[in-house]
Protein backbone atom coordinates (compact mmCIF):
# COMPACT_ATOMS: atom_id res chain seq x y z
CA UNK A 1 0.00 0.00 0.00
CA UNK A 2 2.48 2.64 1.17
CA UNK A 3 5.49 1.52 -0.84
CA UNK A 4 3.65 0.92 -4.13
CA UNK A 5 5.81 0.95 -7.25
CA UNK A 6 2.93 1.40 -9.68
CA UNK A 7 -0.32 3.28 -9.19
CA UNK A 8 -3.53 3.55 -11.18
CA UNK A 9 -5.71 6.63 -10.64
CA UNK A 10 -9.24 5.58 -11.55
CA UNK A 11 -11.26 8.66 -12.41
CA UNK A 12 -8.24 10.75 -13.42
CA UNK A 13 -9.55 13.89 -15.06
CA UNK A 14 -8.25 16.47 -17.53
CA UNK A 15 -10.35 19.05 -15.66
CA UNK A 16 -8.05 20.88 -13.21
CA UNK A 17 -10.99 21.52 -10.82
CA UNK A 18 -11.63 17.80 -10.23
CA UNK A 19 -10.02 15.71 -7.47
CA UNK A 20 -9.17 13.08 -10.10
CA UNK A 21 -6.90 15.67 -11.66
CA UNK A 22 -5.39 16.94 -8.42
CA UNK A 23 -4.38 13.48 -7.24
CA UNK A 24 -2.67 12.56 -10.50
CA UNK A 25 -0.98 15.96 -10.58
CA UNK A 26 0.24 15.63 -6.98
CA UNK A 27 1.68 12.20 -7.73
CA UNK A 28 3.53 13.62 -10.75
CA UNK A 29 4.61 16.89 -9.09
CA UNK A 30 5.60 15.02 -5.94
CA UNK A 31 8.09 13.08 -8.04
CA UNK A 32 6.61 9.58 -7.80
CA UNK A 33 9.27 7.29 -9.27
CA UNK A 34 7.12 4.35 -10.34
CA UNK A 35 4.55 3.83 -13.09
CA UNK A 36 1.41 5.96 -13.15
CA UNK A 37 -1.71 4.83 -14.97
CA UNK A 38 -4.56 7.35 -15.34
CA UNK A 39 -7.90 5.62 -15.99
CA UNK A 40 -10.64 7.49 -17.85
CA UNK A 41 -12.85 6.05 -20.63
CA UNK A 42 -13.14 9.44 -22.36
CA UNK A 43 -9.59 10.82 -22.49
CA UNK A 44 -6.40 9.80 -24.33
CA UNK A 45 -3.79 11.75 -22.42
CA UNK A 46 -3.82 13.58 -19.09
CA UNK A 47 -0.86 15.61 -17.82
CA UNK A 48 1.31 13.94 -20.44
CA UNK A 49 0.43 10.41 -19.32
CA UNK A 50 -1.18 7.80 -21.54
CA UNK A 51 -4.76 7.14 -20.37
CA UNK A 52 -6.32 3.67 -20.09
CA UNK A 53 -10.03 2.86 -20.46
CA UNK A 54 -10.06 0.57 -17.43
CA UNK A 55 -7.78 -1.33 -15.07
CA UNK A 56 -7.87 -4.55 -17.09
CA UNK A 57 -6.33 -2.79 -20.11
CA UNK A 58 -3.09 -2.01 -18.27
CA UNK A 59 -0.31 -4.36 -19.40
CA UNK A 60 2.03 -3.99 -16.42
CA UNK A 61 1.48 -4.87 -12.77
CA UNK A 62 -0.38 -2.41 -10.56
CA UNK A 63 0.35 -2.26 -6.81
CA UNK A 64 -2.22 0.34 -5.83
CA UNK A 65 -5.44 1.74 -7.27
CA UNK A 66 -6.76 5.12 -6.11
CA UNK A 67 -10.45 5.42 -6.92
CA UNK A 68 -12.17 8.79 -7.42
CA UNK A 69 -15.19 7.83 -9.58
CA UNK A 70 -18.80 8.47 -8.45
CA UNK A 71 -19.98 6.01 -5.81
CA UNK A 72 -22.29 3.93 -8.03
CA UNK A 73 -19.32 2.98 -10.26
CA UNK A 74 -17.01 2.01 -7.41
CA UNK A 75 -18.14 -1.65 -7.09
CA UNK A 76 -17.41 -2.43 -10.76
CA UNK A 77 -14.02 -0.69 -10.52
CA UNK A 78 -13.22 -2.77 -7.46
CA UNK A 79 -14.27 -5.90 -9.34
CA UNK A 80 -11.84 -4.93 -12.14
CA UNK A 81 -9.11 -4.31 -9.59
CA UNK A 82 -9.65 -7.78 -8.16
CA UNK A 83 -9.45 -9.38 -11.60
CA UNK A 84 -6.32 -7.40 -12.43
CA UNK A 85 -4.68 -8.72 -9.25
CA UNK A 86 -4.52 -5.37 -7.45
CA UNK A 87 -4.49 -5.96 -3.69
CA UNK A 88 -4.35 -2.37 -2.38
CA UNK A 89 -7.06 0.17 -2.98
CA UNK A 90 -7.76 3.68 -1.70
CA UNK A 91 -11.32 4.89 -2.24
CA UNK A 92 -11.60 8.68 -2.10
CA UNK A 93 -15.24 8.77 -3.20
CA UNK A 94 -17.90 9.58 -0.63
CA UNK A 95 -21.59 8.66 -0.52
CA UNK A 96 -21.38 5.38 1.41
CA UNK A 97 -22.09 4.45 5.04
CA UNK A 98 -21.90 8.10 6.10
CA UNK A 99 -25.15 8.90 4.21
CA UNK A 100 -26.98 5.80 5.50
CA UNK A 101 -29.57 3.77 3.54
CA UNK A 102 -28.40 3.09 -0.04
CA UNK A 103 -24.89 4.25 0.80
CA UNK A 104 -24.60 1.67 3.54
CA UNK A 105 -25.72 -1.07 1.14
CA UNK A 106 -23.17 0.07 -1.41
CA UNK A 107 -20.37 -0.01 1.19
CA UNK A 108 -21.29 -3.55 2.20
CA UNK A 109 -21.15 -4.51 -1.47
CA UNK A 110 -17.63 -3.10 -1.66
CA UNK A 111 -16.56 -5.07 1.38
CA UNK A 112 -17.79 -8.31 -0.15
CA UNK A 113 -15.88 -7.72 -3.39
CA UNK A 114 -12.76 -6.79 -1.44
CA UNK A 115 -13.05 -9.92 0.67
CA UNK A 116 -13.54 -12.12 -2.39
CA UNK A 117 -10.26 -10.94 -3.93
CA UNK A 118 -8.31 -10.29 -0.74
CA UNK A 119 -8.09 -6.55 -1.42
CA UNK A 120 -7.21 -4.17 1.43
CA UNK A 121 -9.25 -0.99 1.27
CA UNK A 122 -8.56 2.43 2.78
CA UNK A 123 -11.70 4.59 2.87
CA UNK A 124 -14.18 5.13 1.28
CA UNK A 125 -14.98 8.78 1.89
CA UNK A 126 -11.37 9.75 2.60
CA UNK A 127 -8.65 12.14 1.55
CA UNK A 128 -6.14 9.55 0.34
CA UNK A 129 -2.66 8.57 1.48
CA UNK A 130 0.78 10.11 1.21
CA UNK A 131 4.14 8.49 1.88
CA UNK A 132 6.84 11.13 1.47
CA UNK A 133 9.54 8.45 1.69
CA UNK A 134 8.07 6.88 -1.45
CA UNK A 135 7.40 10.29 -3.05
CA UNK A 136 3.77 9.18 -3.21
CA UNK A 137 1.27 11.93 -2.60
CA UNK A 138 -2.00 10.22 -3.53
CA UNK A 139 -3.80 12.94 -1.65
CA UNK A 140 -4.06 16.70 -1.29
CA UNK A 141 -2.56 19.18 -0.54
CA UNK A 142 0.80 18.30 -2.10
CA UNK A 143 3.27 17.62 0.70
CA UNK A 144 6.73 16.29 -0.12
CA UNK A 145 8.98 17.15 2.82
CA UNK A 146 10.21 13.91 4.37
CA UNK A 147 9.80 13.63 8.14
CA UNK A 148 9.35 11.20 11.03
CA UNK A 149 5.69 11.59 12.01
CA UNK A 150 2.93 9.41 10.54
CA UNK A 151 -0.49 10.99 10.77
CA UNK A 152 -3.59 8.82 10.68
CA UNK A 153 -6.87 10.66 10.73
CA UNK A 154 -10.62 10.43 10.55
CA UNK A 155 -10.72 14.10 9.65
CA UNK A 156 -9.25 15.25 6.36
CA UNK A 157 -8.87 18.79 7.61
CA UNK A 158 -7.22 17.93 10.92
CA UNK A 159 -4.59 15.85 9.15
CA UNK A 160 -4.12 18.32 6.30
CA UNK A 161 -3.59 21.18 8.75
CA UNK A 162 -1.26 19.03 10.85
CA UNK A 163 0.76 18.07 7.77
CA UNK A 164 0.84 21.67 6.62
CA UNK A 165 2.23 22.89 9.96
CA UNK A 166 4.92 20.21 9.78
CA UNK A 167 5.79 21.39 6.27
CA UNK A 168 5.85 25.08 7.27
CA UNK A 169 7.99 24.33 10.34
CA UNK A 170 10.39 22.33 8.19
CA UNK A 171 9.86 18.95 9.84
CA UNK A 172 7.80 17.24 7.16
CA UNK A 173 5.99 13.97 7.72
CA UNK A 174 6.56 10.30 7.03
CA UNK A 175 3.03 9.30 6.05
CA UNK A 176 -0.46 10.69 5.90
CA UNK A 177 -3.43 8.35 6.01
CA UNK A 178 -7.00 9.55 5.81
CA UNK A 179 -9.16 6.81 7.35
CA UNK A 180 -12.55 7.90 6.05
CA UNK A 181 -15.26 5.36 6.87
CA UNK A 182 -12.71 2.71 7.99
CA UNK A 183 -14.70 0.06 6.12
CA UNK A 184 -11.66 -2.24 6.07
CA UNK A 185 -8.30 -0.77 7.13
CA UNK A 186 -8.57 0.89 10.53
CA UNK A 187 -6.32 2.38 13.20
CA UNK A 188 -5.38 -1.05 14.54
CA UNK A 189 -3.94 -2.20 11.17
CA UNK A 190 -2.13 1.09 10.73
CA UNK A 191 -0.54 1.19 14.20
CA UNK A 192 0.78 -2.30 13.50
CA UNK A 193 2.17 -1.21 10.13
CA UNK A 194 3.81 2.01 11.33
CA UNK A 195 5.26 0.30 14.39
CA UNK A 196 7.47 -1.52 11.88
CA UNK A 197 7.95 1.28 9.35
CA UNK A 198 11.59 2.37 9.49
CA UNK A 199 10.80 5.92 8.37
CA UNK A 200 8.27 6.58 11.13
CA UNK A 201 9.20 7.57 14.68
CA UNK A 202 5.87 8.79 16.05
CA UNK A 203 2.31 7.75 15.20
CA UNK A 204 -0.22 10.56 15.51
CA UNK A 205 -3.82 9.50 15.48
CA UNK A 206 -7.00 11.56 15.22
CA UNK A 207 -9.95 9.23 15.79
CA UNK A 208 -13.55 9.75 16.76
CA UNK A 209 -14.16 6.20 17.95
CA UNK A 210 -12.63 2.74 18.10
CA UNK A 211 -14.57 -0.33 17.00
CA UNK A 212 -12.67 -2.97 18.94
CA UNK A 213 -11.24 -1.42 22.09
CA UNK A 214 -9.33 -4.53 23.14
CA UNK A 215 -7.59 -4.91 19.78
CA UNK A 216 -6.73 -1.21 19.89
CA UNK A 217 -5.19 -1.54 23.35
CA UNK A 218 -3.27 -4.68 22.45
CA UNK A 219 -1.73 -3.26 19.30
CA UNK A 220 -0.84 -0.03 21.14
CA UNK A 221 0.82 -1.98 23.96
CA UNK A 222 2.90 -3.90 21.40
CA UNK A 223 3.79 -0.76 19.43
CA UNK A 224 7.49 0.12 19.54
CA UNK A 225 6.89 3.84 19.01
CA UNK A 226 5.05 6.65 20.77
CA UNK A 227 1.39 6.99 19.81
CA UNK A 228 -0.21 10.41 20.27
CA UNK A 229 -4.01 10.45 20.15
CA UNK A 230 -6.51 13.25 19.75
CA UNK A 231 -10.05 11.99 20.29
CA UNK A 232 -12.92 14.45 20.58
CA UNK A 233 -16.51 13.73 21.58
CA UNK A 234 -15.90 14.27 25.29
CA UNK A 235 -19.14 16.11 26.03
CA UNK A 236 -22.62 14.71 25.39
CA UNK A 237 -23.17 17.20 22.58
CA UNK A 238 -19.77 16.40 21.12
CA UNK A 239 -20.63 12.68 21.09
CA UNK A 240 -23.77 13.41 19.06
CA UNK A 241 -21.72 15.36 16.53
CA UNK A 242 -19.29 12.42 16.25
CA UNK A 243 -22.18 10.12 15.35
CA UNK A 244 -23.31 12.31 12.49
CA UNK A 245 -19.78 13.05 11.26
CA UNK A 246 -18.28 9.59 10.89
CA UNK A 247 -20.95 7.26 12.30
CA UNK A 248 -18.42 6.36 15.00
CA UNK A 249 -19.31 5.61 18.60
CA UNK A 250 -17.42 8.11 20.74
CA UNK A 251 -17.98 5.95 23.85
CA UNK A 252 -17.37 6.94 27.47
CA UNK A 253 -14.46 9.30 27.62
CA UNK A 254 -13.20 8.12 31.02
CA UNK A 255 -12.98 4.59 29.61
CA UNK A 256 -10.95 5.71 26.61
CA UNK A 257 -8.76 7.71 28.98
CA UNK A 258 -8.14 4.60 31.08
CA UNK A 259 -7.32 2.58 27.97
CA UNK A 260 -4.75 5.21 26.94
CA UNK A 261 -3.10 5.07 30.37
CA UNK A 262 -2.93 1.28 30.33
CA UNK A 263 -1.63 1.07 26.75
CA UNK A 264 0.86 3.94 27.18
CA UNK A 265 -0.84 6.11 24.60
CA UNK A 266 -0.19 9.85 24.91
CA UNK A 267 -3.56 11.58 24.93
CA UNK A 268 -3.60 15.15 23.65
CA UNK A 269 -6.45 17.30 24.93
CA UNK A 270 -6.61 19.66 21.96
CA UNK A 271 -5.28 20.18 18.45
CA UNK A 272 -2.34 22.27 19.66
CA UNK A 273 -1.21 19.59 22.15
CA UNK A 274 -1.69 16.97 19.43
CA UNK A 275 0.81 18.77 17.21
CA UNK A 276 3.24 19.76 19.96
CA UNK A 277 3.37 16.32 21.60
CA UNK A 278 3.98 14.65 18.24
CA UNK A 279 6.75 17.11 17.41
CA UNK A 280 8.35 16.71 20.85
CA UNK A 281 8.34 12.91 20.79
CA UNK A 282 9.67 12.78 17.24
CA UNK A 283 12.50 15.27 17.62
CA UNK A 284 13.57 15.49 21.27
CA UNK A 285 15.91 12.97 22.91
CA UNK A 286 14.78 10.54 25.61
CA UNK A 287 13.91 12.02 29.02
CA UNK A 288 15.15 10.10 32.05
CA UNK A 289 13.65 11.93 35.02
CA UNK A 290 11.65 14.88 36.27
CA UNK A 291 14.26 17.47 37.26
CA UNK A 292 14.37 20.62 35.14
CA UNK A 293 16.71 23.59 34.95
CA UNK A 294 15.45 26.72 33.19
CA UNK A 295 17.71 29.21 31.43
CA UNK A 296 15.86 32.36 30.39
CA UNK A 297 16.06 36.03 29.56
CA UNK A 298 12.51 36.54 30.79
CA UNK A 299 11.46 35.95 34.38
CA UNK A 300 7.76 36.03 33.52
CA UNK A 301 7.95 33.52 30.71
CA UNK A 302 9.99 31.17 32.89
CA UNK A 303 7.42 31.27 35.68
CA UNK A 304 4.65 30.39 33.25
CA UNK A 305 6.67 27.30 32.36
CA UNK A 306 7.39 26.47 36.01
CA UNK A 307 3.71 26.35 36.90
CA UNK A 308 2.95 23.92 34.09
CA UNK A 309 5.94 21.75 34.99
CA UNK A 310 5.22 21.61 38.72
CA UNK A 311 1.53 20.92 38.14
CA UNK A 312 2.52 17.89 36.08
CA UNK A 313 4.90 16.37 38.59
CA UNK A 314 8.16 17.94 37.49
CA UNK A 315 10.73 19.21 39.95
CA UNK A 316 12.10 22.64 39.06
CA UNK A 317 15.15 22.24 41.28
CA UNK A 318 17.03 25.05 43.05
CA UNK A 319 20.36 25.73 41.37
CA UNK A 320 23.10 23.84 43.25
CA UNK A 321 25.75 26.04 44.89
CA UNK A 322 28.69 24.67 42.93
CA UNK A 323 26.94 25.51 39.65
CA UNK A 324 25.94 28.94 40.93
CA UNK A 325 29.56 29.76 41.74
CA UNK A 326 30.72 28.88 38.25
CA UNK A 327 27.80 30.73 36.67
CA UNK A 328 28.75 33.94 38.52
CA UNK A 329 31.94 34.04 36.46
CA UNK A 330 30.12 34.10 33.13
CA UNK A 331 26.99 36.14 33.90
CA UNK A 332 26.42 39.83 34.62
CA UNK A 333 26.02 40.88 38.25
CA UNK A 334 22.27 41.48 37.88
CA UNK A 335 21.54 37.96 36.60
CA UNK A 336 19.47 35.81 38.95
CA UNK A 337 21.00 32.39 39.40
CA UNK A 338 18.33 30.50 41.31
CA UNK A 339 16.37 28.31 38.97
CA UNK A 340 15.14 29.93 36.67
CA UNK A 341 18.56 31.20 35.74
CA UNK A 342 17.45 34.62 34.54
CA UNK A 343 20.01 36.37 32.35
CA UNK A 344 17.52 39.26 31.95
CA UNK A 345 16.77 41.39 28.91
CA UNK A 346 20.35 42.18 27.87
CA UNK A 347 21.27 38.52 27.49
CA UNK A 348 23.14 37.53 24.34
CA UNK A 349 23.86 34.26 22.58
CA UNK A 350 27.30 33.90 24.10
CA UNK A 351 25.94 34.21 27.62
CA UNK A 352 23.38 31.50 26.86
CA UNK A 353 26.14 29.30 25.48
CA UNK A 354 28.33 29.67 28.58
CA UNK A 355 25.44 29.04 30.94
CA UNK A 356 23.98 26.06 29.06
CA UNK A 357 27.39 24.44 28.65
CA UNK A 358 28.24 24.87 32.32
CA UNK A 359 24.82 23.60 33.35
CA UNK A 360 25.16 20.48 31.25
CA UNK A 361 28.69 19.88 32.48
CA UNK A 362 28.09 20.49 36.19
CA UNK A 363 24.56 19.23 36.60
CA UNK A 364 24.81 15.82 34.94
CA UNK A 365 23.71 14.10 38.12
CA UNK A 366 20.82 16.30 39.18
CA UNK A 367 19.16 17.65 36.05
CA UNK A 368 17.23 15.60 33.49
CA UNK A 369 16.24 18.34 31.05
CA UNK A 370 17.01 21.97 30.31
CA UNK A 371 14.29 24.36 29.25
CA UNK A 372 15.70 27.33 27.38
CA UNK A 373 13.53 30.42 27.10
CA UNK A 374 14.76 32.90 24.53
CA UNK A 375 12.62 35.85 25.52
CA UNK A 376 14.24 38.63 23.52
CA UNK A 377 15.63 39.14 19.98
CA UNK A 378 18.74 37.03 20.60
CA UNK A 379 20.78 36.65 17.44
CA UNK A 380 22.85 33.54 16.99
CA UNK A 381 20.69 31.55 19.40
CA UNK A 382 20.27 28.78 16.83
CA UNK A 383 24.01 28.11 16.65
CA UNK A 384 24.23 27.99 20.44
CA UNK A 385 21.40 25.48 20.76
CA UNK A 386 22.82 23.38 17.96
CA UNK A 387 26.24 23.28 19.60
CA UNK A 388 24.79 22.41 23.01
CA UNK A 389 22.40 19.72 21.70
CA UNK A 390 23.23 16.44 23.42
CA UNK A 391 21.60 13.29 24.74
CA UNK A 392 19.58 15.16 27.38
CA UNK A 393 16.57 17.06 26.14
CA UNK A 394 16.94 20.80 25.62
CA UNK A 395 13.48 22.22 25.05
CA UNK A 396 13.47 25.61 23.40
CA UNK A 397 10.85 28.31 23.75
CA UNK A 398 11.44 31.35 21.59
CA UNK A 399 9.00 34.15 22.34
CA UNK A 400 8.95 37.94 22.18
CA UNK A 401 11.89 38.03 19.77
CA UNK A 402 10.22 39.60 16.72
CA UNK A 403 11.94 39.24 13.34
CA UNK A 404 15.09 37.76 14.90
CA UNK A 405 12.96 35.08 16.58
CA UNK A 406 11.40 34.11 13.24
CA UNK A 407 14.79 33.81 11.57
CA UNK A 408 16.41 31.87 14.40
CA UNK A 409 13.41 29.57 14.83
CA UNK A 410 13.52 28.72 11.16
CA UNK A 411 17.22 27.90 11.37
CA UNK A 412 16.74 25.64 14.39
CA UNK A 413 13.75 23.78 13.00
CA UNK A 414 15.49 23.17 9.67
CA UNK A 415 18.07 21.30 11.77
CA UNK A 416 15.32 19.26 13.46
CA UNK A 417 15.50 21.22 16.71
CA UNK A 418 11.90 21.81 17.82
CA UNK A 419 11.04 25.31 18.98
CA UNK A 420 7.85 26.21 20.86
CA UNK A 421 6.28 29.64 20.71
CA UNK A 422 5.08 29.89 24.33
CA UNK A 423 6.67 28.73 27.61
CA UNK A 424 3.60 26.61 28.40
CA UNK A 425 3.83 24.75 25.10
CA UNK A 426 7.53 24.06 25.71
CA UNK A 427 6.76 22.84 29.23
CA UNK A 428 3.98 20.60 27.98
CA UNK A 429 6.36 19.11 25.43
CA UNK A 430 8.39 17.91 28.42
CA UNK A 431 5.22 16.59 30.04
CA UNK A 432 4.57 14.47 26.94
CA UNK A 433 8.11 13.07 27.10
CA UNK A 434 7.61 12.24 30.78
CA UNK A 435 4.35 10.38 30.07
CA UNK A 436 6.02 8.33 27.40
CA UNK A 437 9.40 7.61 28.96
CA UNK A 438 7.85 7.19 32.43
Amino acid at each position, binding site marked *: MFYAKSIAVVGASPDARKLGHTILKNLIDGGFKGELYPINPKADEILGKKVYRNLIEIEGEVDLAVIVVPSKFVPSVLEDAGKKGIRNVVIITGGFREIGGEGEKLENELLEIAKKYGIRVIGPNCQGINNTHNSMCASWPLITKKGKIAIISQSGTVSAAFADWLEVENFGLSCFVSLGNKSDVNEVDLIEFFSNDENTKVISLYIE*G*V*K*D*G*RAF*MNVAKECKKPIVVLKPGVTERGKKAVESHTKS*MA*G*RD*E*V*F*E*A*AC*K*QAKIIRARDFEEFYDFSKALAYLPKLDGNRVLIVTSSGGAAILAIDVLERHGFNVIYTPEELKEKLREVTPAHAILDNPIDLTGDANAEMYKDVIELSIELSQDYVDAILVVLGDPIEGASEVIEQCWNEKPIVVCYTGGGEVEREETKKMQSKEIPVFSTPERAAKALVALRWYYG
Partner: protein
Amino acid sequence: MDEIIKKALEENRFPTEAECRELLKKYGIPVLDYGVAYSEKEALKIAKKFGYPVVLKMLNIKGLHKSEVNGVRLDVRSDDEVVKHFNELKSEWGVLISPMVKGLELFVGAFQDEQFGAVISFGTGGKYVEVYKDVSFRIAPFDKNEAIKMIDETKVSIILRGYRDKPKNLDAVVDLLLKLSKLMHENPEIKEVDLNPTFAFDDRITVADARFIL
Protein backbone atom coordinates in the same frame (compact mmCIF):
# COMPACT_ATOMS: atom_id res chain seq x y z
CA MET B 1 -21.18 -17.99 34.42
CA ASP B 2 -21.93 -18.45 38.08
CA GLU B 3 -25.03 -20.38 39.22
CA ILE B 4 -26.48 -17.31 40.95
CA ILE B 5 -26.33 -15.27 37.75
CA LYS B 6 -27.66 -18.18 35.72
CA LYS B 7 -30.65 -18.58 38.03
CA ALA B 8 -31.47 -14.87 37.99
CA LEU B 9 -31.28 -14.79 34.19
CA GLU B 10 -33.54 -17.83 33.91
CA GLU B 11 -36.06 -16.12 36.15
CA ASN B 12 -35.70 -12.93 34.14
CA ARG B 13 -34.73 -10.79 37.15
CA PHE B 14 -31.72 -9.17 38.79
CA PRO B 15 -30.05 -10.86 41.77
CA THR B 16 -31.14 -9.66 45.22
CA GLU B 17 -28.54 -8.05 47.43
CA ALA B 18 -28.25 -11.27 49.41
CA GLU B 19 -27.39 -13.13 46.20
CA CYS B 20 -24.94 -10.40 45.19
CA ARG B 21 -23.15 -10.74 48.53
CA GLU B 22 -23.06 -14.51 48.16
CA LEU B 23 -21.43 -14.23 44.74
CA LEU B 24 -18.90 -11.70 46.04
CA LYS B 25 -18.00 -14.13 48.84
CA LYS B 26 -17.38 -16.87 46.30
CA TYR B 27 -14.71 -14.63 44.76
CA GLY B 28 -13.12 -14.02 48.14
CA ILE B 29 -14.39 -10.44 48.39
CA PRO B 30 -15.06 -9.49 52.03
CA VAL B 31 -18.70 -8.56 52.57
CA LEU B 32 -20.39 -7.32 55.72
CA ASP B 33 -22.06 -10.05 57.82
CA TYR B 34 -25.72 -10.43 57.00
CA GLY B 35 -28.81 -12.52 57.51
CA VAL B 36 -32.08 -12.67 55.61
CA ALA B 37 -35.30 -12.61 57.66
CA TYR B 38 -38.71 -13.72 56.39
CA SER B 39 -40.56 -13.17 59.69
CA GLU B 40 -40.47 -10.81 62.69
CA LYS B 41 -39.13 -13.64 64.78
CA GLU B 42 -36.26 -14.32 62.39
CA ALA B 43 -35.51 -10.59 62.19
CA LEU B 44 -35.20 -10.32 65.96
CA LYS B 45 -33.03 -13.41 66.12
CA ILE B 46 -30.61 -12.04 63.52
CA ALA B 47 -30.52 -8.60 65.17
CA LYS B 48 -29.76 -10.20 68.51
CA LYS B 49 -26.94 -12.25 67.01
CA PHE B 50 -25.21 -9.11 65.59
CA GLY B 51 -26.10 -6.86 68.55
CA TYR B 52 -27.48 -3.32 68.22
CA PRO B 53 -27.24 -1.10 66.28
CA VAL B 54 -28.14 -2.91 63.05
CA VAL B 55 -29.18 -1.99 59.50
CA LEU B 56 -32.32 -3.31 57.76
CA LYS B 57 -32.53 -3.33 53.98
CA MET B 58 -35.26 -4.05 51.49
CA LEU B 59 -34.45 -6.88 49.05
CA ASN B 60 -35.60 -6.48 45.46
CA ILE B 61 -34.97 -7.91 42.02
CA LYS B 62 -35.06 -4.67 40.02
CA GLY B 63 -31.59 -3.37 40.82
CA LEU B 64 -33.07 -0.32 42.56
CA HIS B 65 -30.97 2.25 44.40
CA LYS B 66 -32.39 1.23 47.78
CA SER B 67 -31.77 4.55 49.49
CA GLU B 68 -33.80 6.35 46.81
CA VAL B 69 -36.90 4.31 47.66
CA ASN B 70 -36.37 4.58 51.41
CA GLY B 71 -35.31 0.93 51.42
CA VAL B 72 -32.43 1.31 53.89
CA ARG B 73 -32.96 1.82 57.64
CA LEU B 74 -29.74 2.70 59.42
CA ASP B 75 -28.86 2.70 63.10
CA VAL B 76 -31.77 0.53 64.29
CA ARG B 77 -31.37 0.20 68.07
CA SER B 78 -34.22 -1.81 69.60
CA ASP B 79 -36.49 -4.84 69.13
CA ASP B 80 -39.51 -2.57 68.60
CA GLU B 81 -37.72 -0.68 65.85
CA VAL B 82 -36.63 -3.93 64.19
CA VAL B 83 -40.23 -5.17 64.07
CA LYS B 84 -41.52 -1.84 62.73
CA HIS B 85 -38.91 -1.57 59.97
CA PHE B 86 -39.15 -5.26 59.12
CA ASN B 87 -42.85 -4.91 58.40
CA GLU B 88 -42.33 -1.82 56.27
CA LEU B 89 -39.58 -3.42 54.18
CA LYS B 90 -40.72 -7.03 53.87
CA SER B 91 -41.36 -8.77 50.55
CA GLU B 92 -41.26 -12.33 49.23
CA TRP B 93 -37.45 -11.96 49.10
CA GLY B 94 -37.21 -11.24 52.83
CA VAL B 95 -35.35 -8.41 54.57
CA LEU B 96 -31.56 -8.19 54.83
CA ILE B 97 -30.06 -7.40 58.24
CA SER B 98 -26.45 -6.43 58.91
CA PRO B 99 -24.51 -4.97 61.80
CA MET B 100 -24.15 -1.17 61.61
CA VAL B 101 -20.53 -0.32 60.85
CA LYS B 102 -18.80 2.89 59.91
CA GLY B 103 -15.45 3.22 58.15
CA LEU B 104 -13.97 5.28 55.32
CA GLU B 105 -16.60 5.23 52.58
CA LEU B 106 -15.30 3.99 49.22
CA PHE B 107 -16.99 3.41 45.91
CA VAL B 108 -16.06 0.32 43.94
CA GLY B 109 -17.86 -0.43 40.71
CA ALA B 110 -17.70 -2.18 37.37
CA PHE B 111 -19.48 -2.13 34.05
CA GLN B 112 -19.33 -3.61 30.56
CA ASP B 113 -18.29 -1.04 27.97
CA GLU B 114 -19.41 -1.58 24.39
CA GLN B 115 -15.94 -1.01 22.94
CA PHE B 116 -13.57 -2.01 25.73
CA GLY B 117 -15.39 -4.73 27.70
CA ALA B 118 -15.20 -4.92 31.49
CA VAL B 119 -14.19 -1.68 33.21
CA ILE B 120 -13.51 -1.31 36.95
CA SER B 121 -14.02 1.96 38.80
CA PHE B 122 -12.87 3.20 42.20
CA GLY B 123 -13.26 6.35 44.26
CA THR B 124 -14.99 8.24 47.05
CA GLY B 125 -18.12 6.38 48.14
CA GLY B 126 -21.46 7.32 49.61
CA LYS B 127 -24.59 9.02 48.47
CA TYR B 128 -22.78 11.84 46.66
CA VAL B 129 -20.61 9.78 44.29
CA GLU B 130 -22.09 11.59 41.30
CA VAL B 131 -21.50 14.98 42.90
CA TYR B 132 -17.87 14.54 43.94
CA LYS B 133 -16.95 12.52 40.84
CA ASP B 134 -13.76 11.38 42.55
CA VAL B 135 -13.51 8.21 40.46
CA SER B 136 -10.81 6.51 38.43
CA PHE B 137 -11.21 3.77 35.83
CA ARG B 138 -9.24 0.83 34.43
CA ILE B 139 -10.00 -1.73 31.75
CA ALA B 140 -10.00 -5.25 33.24
CA PRO B 141 -7.92 -7.30 33.67
CA PHE B 142 -5.00 -5.39 35.17
CA ASP B 143 -2.18 -6.11 37.60
CA LYS B 144 -1.41 -4.92 41.11
CA ASN B 145 0.72 -1.98 39.93
CA GLU B 146 -2.07 -0.73 37.73
CA ALA B 147 -4.54 -1.08 40.63
CA ILE B 148 -2.30 1.06 42.84
CA LYS B 149 -1.99 3.71 40.11
CA MET B 150 -5.75 3.65 39.77
CA ILE B 151 -6.28 4.19 43.50
CA ASP B 152 -3.68 6.96 43.62
CA GLU B 153 -5.46 8.95 40.91
CA THR B 154 -8.31 9.65 43.35
CA LYS B 155 -8.49 12.15 46.19
CA VAL B 156 -9.71 9.52 48.62
CA SER B 157 -6.35 7.75 48.21
CA ILE B 158 -4.80 10.51 50.33
CA ILE B 159 -7.13 9.58 53.21
CA LEU B 160 -6.59 5.87 52.56
CA ARG B 161 -2.86 6.38 52.92
CA GLY B 162 -3.37 8.11 56.26
CA TYR B 163 -4.45 11.73 56.46
CA ARG B 164 -4.79 13.01 60.05
CA ASP B 165 -5.58 9.42 60.95
CA LYS B 166 -4.16 5.93 60.74
CA PRO B 167 -3.66 4.63 57.17
CA LYS B 168 -6.31 2.20 55.96
CA ASN B 169 -5.61 -1.25 54.57
CA LEU B 170 -4.58 -0.39 51.01
CA ASP B 171 -3.60 -3.95 50.14
CA ALA B 172 -7.15 -5.08 50.84
CA VAL B 173 -8.49 -2.46 48.42
CA VAL B 174 -6.05 -3.58 45.72
CA ASP B 175 -7.08 -7.16 46.34
CA LEU B 176 -10.76 -6.25 46.00
CA LEU B 177 -10.18 -4.48 42.67
CA LEU B 178 -8.31 -7.49 41.28
CA LYS B 179 -10.98 -9.93 42.46
CA LEU B 180 -13.81 -7.83 41.08
CA SER B 181 -11.96 -7.70 37.78
CA LYS B 182 -11.87 -11.52 37.77
CA LEU B 183 -15.57 -11.72 38.66
CA MET B 184 -16.49 -9.40 35.76
CA HIS B 185 -14.27 -11.29 33.35
CA GLU B 186 -15.84 -14.62 34.24
CA ASN B 187 -19.41 -13.30 34.29
CA PRO B 188 -19.82 -11.05 31.24
CA GLU B 189 -23.60 -11.23 31.74
CA ILE B 190 -23.21 -8.75 34.58
CA LYS B 191 -23.63 -5.34 32.98
CA GLU B 192 -23.02 -3.23 36.05
CA VAL B 193 -21.81 -3.61 39.64
CA ASP B 194 -22.04 -1.04 42.43
CA LEU B 195 -20.33 -1.81 45.74
CA ASN B 196 -21.22 1.42 47.50
CA PRO B 197 -20.34 1.93 50.19
CA THR B 198 -17.37 -0.31 50.71
CA PHE B 199 -15.88 0.53 54.11
CA ALA B 200 -12.13 0.71 54.64
CA PHE B 201 -10.60 0.27 58.12
CA ASP B 202 -7.00 0.19 59.18
CA ASP B 203 -6.93 -3.61 59.25
CA ARG B 204 -9.53 -4.65 56.65
CA ILE B 205 -12.23 -3.61 54.21
CA THR B 206 -15.82 -4.76 53.90
CA VAL B 207 -18.48 -4.34 51.22
CA ALA B 208 -21.60 -2.91 52.87
CA ASP B 209 -23.87 -2.64 49.85
CA ALA B 210 -23.96 -4.53 46.57
CA ARG B 211 -26.08 -4.05 43.47
CA PHE B 212 -25.76 -6.00 40.21
CA ILE B 213 -27.48 -5.16 36.93
CA LEU B 214 -27.69 -7.95 34.36
